[in-house]
């Protein structure tokens, strides 16, 4: 009986914990959203920090990211093409390449890439700021941490994931064309027709929304996880661990929901 009671109690504590975390995240998001609508937020200082964030999140890693996209795309395209040839489905190869790579795999991998590089850094930095009282110091100086530290990271994350996933998609489409038709213009018309057929308004809007949600997940979750850190230095690794686990589950959940909405 005691075991049953303690199990229920522990489950209840966990559920309450999840709800508290979710509430904290949505409250933070609502606060950020309201601040976005406030005209005073859009001053030169905030704009400069947003530009800096985009530079650190997207521009600084561009060459590594494009190299990684090139390798992954080349491998997947080769696998799709050889499988399509084996099954006599060559005419579907270009559509399959675009659907698998551009719509699903590359946005997912971009989000993972940004999460591992920038998300973990954001989580650690915010946790350290929390532990070292730096946020209290900013508050004492009446420098709003939301405008100076958090909002630029959220905006930078969303813009970075959307643009990097877009760039990766363009690169993959170019590679797909080269792999299927080679260096000539013979396949230009059928290939562009396939692209036009796939990318209707609904798919484009869904893709942009999915990438924006990925961008939000890889920045919002680390920020809120960092802010939850108790003021003890040894809790920083725990905060990063929790934050990155949540980011992973959020990215997977977004991908699963997007697939379900598209194909079920």
């Amino acid at each position: 009986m005691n075991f049953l009671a303690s199990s229920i109690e522990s489950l209840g504590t966990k559920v309450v914990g999840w709800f508290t975390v979710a509430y904290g995240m949505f409250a933070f998001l609502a606060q950020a959203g309201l601040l976005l609508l406030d005209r005073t937020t859009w001053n030169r200082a905030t704009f400069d920090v947003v530009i800096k964030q985009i530079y650190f999140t997207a521009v600084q890693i561009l060459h590594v990211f494009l190299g990684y996209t090139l390798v992954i795309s080349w491998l997947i395209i080769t696998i799709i093409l050889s499988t399509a040839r084996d099954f006599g489905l060559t005419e579907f190869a270009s559509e399959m390449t675009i659907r698998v790579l551009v719509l699903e795999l590359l946005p997912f991998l971009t989000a993972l890439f940004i999460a591992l590089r920038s998300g973990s850094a954001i989580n650690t930095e915010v946790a350290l700021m929390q532990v070292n009282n730096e946020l209290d110091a900013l508050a004492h100086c009446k420098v709003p941490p939301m405008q100076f530290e958090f909002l630029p990271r959220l905006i930078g994350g969303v813009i970075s994931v959307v643009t990097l996933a877009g760039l990766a998609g363009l690169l993959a489409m170019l590679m797909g064309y080269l792999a299927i038709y080679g260096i000539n213009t013979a396949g230009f018309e059928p290939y562009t027709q396939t692209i036009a057929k796939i990318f209707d308004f609904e798919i484009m809007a869904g893709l942009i929304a999915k990438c924006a949600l990925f961008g939000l997940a890889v920045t919002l979750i680390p920020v809120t996880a960092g802010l939850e850190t108790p003021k003890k230095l040894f809790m920083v690794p725990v905060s990063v661990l929790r934050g990155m686990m949540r980011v992973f589950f959020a990215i997977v959940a977004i991908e699963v929901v997007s697939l379900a909405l598209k194909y079920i």
Partner: protein
Amino acid sequence: MTAVADLNDDVARVALDLPLRANLSALDNIALIPLYQRHYGAAESVQQAQAMLDQMGHAEIALLRDPDMTPAQRFVTKLARALILKRPRLVIDRPGAMLYDVPYPAFIRQLATQAGMTGTWEIFDFSWNQALYKE
């Protein structure tokens, strides 16, 4: 000491529990105030911050970040940040905890006598350190 932390908004505090932003230089830490409070442009804010450091005789620390500073340099940056807030009162809270590499009463006195320093600086320190201020 809780009373010091609870001082109201018209007090600019220099304290161990109000650290600098670790990944910003001394100049950027000070420039944040005119940038976000008075909405000056970035260049003008940096200029004001540099002028403050010049006035305090520590222009050389402008580009240093917190971990690269000596305790005295860190204190000077915190003091410059507090001064640029332009609040009616300035409280230095337990200076001994921040200035452990210099004889601090003399160091603070020297900073206070720099040209152009206005207002009264209040020092909150432990009673057993009172003797140090009489030297």
